[in-house]
């Protein structure tokens, strides 16, 4: 038997999915090209960057925090990865360097928040600026372009016709979902977001697990950087501007509560897809990008509005 609250949450998850399907159906009527295999793969590929970042963001928001630095970390990781590749590092080593830069920056975020007792908003806002500045200083403001085919496989390869970035994204979601639902770490993330003090008093090292959440978010940004760099065959120090907002949007559209403790990764995936499908569809319809921003804003507000209206009903 589902209890009222659990049923309410399930209804919400289903609601987002229904929204996605309805949106897809509407678009397939308006523009026949939408439902073609090539376009759907295109949507999936375009969504992959935001979707990967949103995995880290979901962990952060579930723990009751926020990470504004992800877009800048993507830029910093990307230029470090690119420089390492250009310096002739093996692809695996260069990828590891990119991920490490993201993870270490996340570690700094986490330590500032737990040991320094800074609000997550402030710590990651500072990091957003620091990482962006570092990327610009490191490159002199110029993009780093042109990589070997081996690295570019991250964008060009395909598995059974599915582009590599999509395969990577699916893998990240499966692993993230298992981490969140099957492991001690996942349990603690929900508990800390629900009530940090009660969790701490239950003998859980809340500070450690909170810190790891930001490390995870940084690594996710690093991975998104690799995908983007491979696709563009170029790493730009000004890449990823406003990506934090897209990731937050995907997370909350997916039903994760900004106050922490409630949410799922599959919700976030649907949220990211809604944003991707919407952008793609509006492009196909020839809508101006100015107008797109309005539509996406309306979707974000509607999703959360539905949340807050469902809440009393769930009680």
């Amino acid at each position: 038997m589902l209890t009222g609250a659990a049923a309410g949450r399930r209804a919400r998850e289903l609601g987002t999915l229904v929204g996605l399907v309805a949106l897809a159906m509407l678009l397939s009527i308006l523009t026949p090209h939408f439902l073609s295999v090539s376009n759907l793969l295109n949507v999936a590929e375009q969504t992959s960057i935001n979707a990967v970042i949103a995995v880290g963001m979901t962990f952060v928001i579930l723990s009751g925090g926020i990470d504004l630095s992800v877009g800048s970390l993507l830029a910093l990781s990307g230029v470090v990865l690119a420089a390492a590749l250009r310096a002739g590092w093996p692809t695996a080593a260069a990828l590891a360097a990119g991920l490490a830069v993201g993870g270490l920056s996340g570690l700094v975020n986490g330590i500032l928040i737990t040991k320094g007792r800074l609000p997550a908003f402030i710590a990651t806002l500072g990091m957003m600026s620091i990482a962006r500045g570092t990327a610009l200083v490191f490159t002199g403001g110029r993009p780093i372009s042109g990589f070997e085919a081996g690295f570019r496989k991250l964008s060009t390869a395909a598995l059974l016709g599915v582009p590599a970035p999509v395969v990577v994204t699916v893998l990240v979601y499966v692993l993230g979902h298992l981490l969140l639902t099957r492991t001690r770490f996942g349990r603690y993330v929900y508990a800390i977001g629900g009530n940090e003090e009660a969790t701490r008093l239950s003998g859980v090292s809340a500070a450690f697990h909170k810190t790891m959440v930001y490390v995870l978010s940084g690594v996710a940004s690093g991975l998104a950087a690799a995908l983007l760099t491979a696709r563009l065959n170029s790493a730009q120090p000004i890449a990823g501007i406003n990506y934090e907002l897209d990731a937050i949007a995907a997370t909350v559209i997916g039903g994760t509560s900004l106050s922490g403790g409630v949410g799922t990764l599959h919700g976030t995936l649907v949220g990211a897809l809604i944003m991707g499908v919407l952008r793609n569809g509006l492009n196909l319809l020839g809508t101006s990008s100015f107008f797109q921003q309005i539509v996406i804003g309306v979707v974000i507000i509607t999703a959360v509005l539905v949340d807050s209206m469902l809440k009393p009903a769930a009680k």
Partner: protein
Amino acid sequence: MESIRKSFPGVVALDDVDLEVRPGEVHVLLGENGAGKSTLMKVLSGSLRKDAGQIHVDGAPVEIQGPRHAQQLGIRIIYQELNLVPPLSAAANIFLGREPGRWGVLDRRAAEREAARLLGELGVTVDVTRPVRELGIAHQQMVEVAKALSEEGRILIMDEPTSALTTAEIDQLFATIERLRARGTSIIYISHRLEEVARIGDRVTVMRDGRRVTTRPARTTPIPELVRLMADREVGEHFPRRRGAPGDELLRVEHLTRGERLRDVSFVLRRGEIVGITGLLGAGRTELARAIVGAEPPASGRVVVKGRAVAVRRPKDALALGLGLVPEDRKTQGLVLGLSVERNVALPNTRRLSAWGIVRAAAESALAARWVRDMRIKTPSLAQPARLLSGGNQQKVVLGKWLAADVDVLIVDEPTRGIDVPAKVEIYDLMNRLTAEGKGIVMISSELPEVLGMSDRVLVMRGGAVVAERESTRTTQAEVLAFALGQAC
């Protein structure tokens, strides 16, 4: 106020309480923690609605709709925690929401002039342009009083106004009260300091267990008599404590100190024993509990568990040593309300329930199911969010998670607060069972019958220090209360 009744789920907080306050009178309200003083005042000031009874102001019956309405009737309450906006000036605070001025433009000079005049009337000189956070507590309180007066307060309720004040500041406050009385303002004064009763009060009303015990002239009622009136209780509740011979030492606390809140506290807990800790609010009981489990580590002193001196710097260390804390507020500290019963019970046990970081879900459910059954926690399912359980069942979940963790020492802070009698008895039975199994319990409680009825020894705290230790069967509520109040002869 006549025949005021108020009950919360499972508790009758006010049972037919009468209170009459005359114009220009200082009426002292006395009673232990939980006697119903604050509830009564919340009813009068409109933040709680009464269930039954009559309130008359100036002889006319009134139905107080809310805080705003109470204010219109001239009823003002000054809480222990002051309700000022710290960065704003005294003048801005006094006129908050009623700023003098025209067309939305503030007349700051007028506000400051008027604020200075009001404070002057109270006999204090305060720079009304300074942010109130820079003023001492006493002056902040004067600002509150001035604010109440500027709003034509005729009945002023002061909830333990002297608890944070120095002697000189108290003198100043009392001078203010005298002046207010002379102006015809009625004051309801709540305090735990018995020596203040005769000094400032005209009459005193003693409350106990949600009832009014008596109203007496304040100046002629001796202090021991007041203590007796506060402590005497009908023998209604029974405490099923089964005492046995205590075993080996489980926990020894030596010279724990943390600032002013916790001063040089030492005690010993043996297997099979319940040590009760009581005292007034702010006596340092909760600080002691939190220091022992490392939630707020002590500045000095040490904890010895089963003969071994250990460093407990965080609750995680306490858990590893077999110490668990059932905190005083289960909603904000005991439970993750949004998570299921199962997850809450599992929380301190997750390490044990997992291999290589992966939680064995079946073991997790089995553990939770076992304790839900064993403790008779009433819940439709293990997946029920803890938020939806009743208070008593929530408390059982908090206890259950520590029992599931098989801790040797359980520190319970107000374990039966706000839960109904059957659930209380179940919790007492559980404590008996645990001590029979050779575990030790430190029970912090404000309820004297509970402390004396359930513990083997009782420590009385006052001002952060232990002021008395007694065998529970060889002391009386009056004696314990006298120590708690600092009135022991």
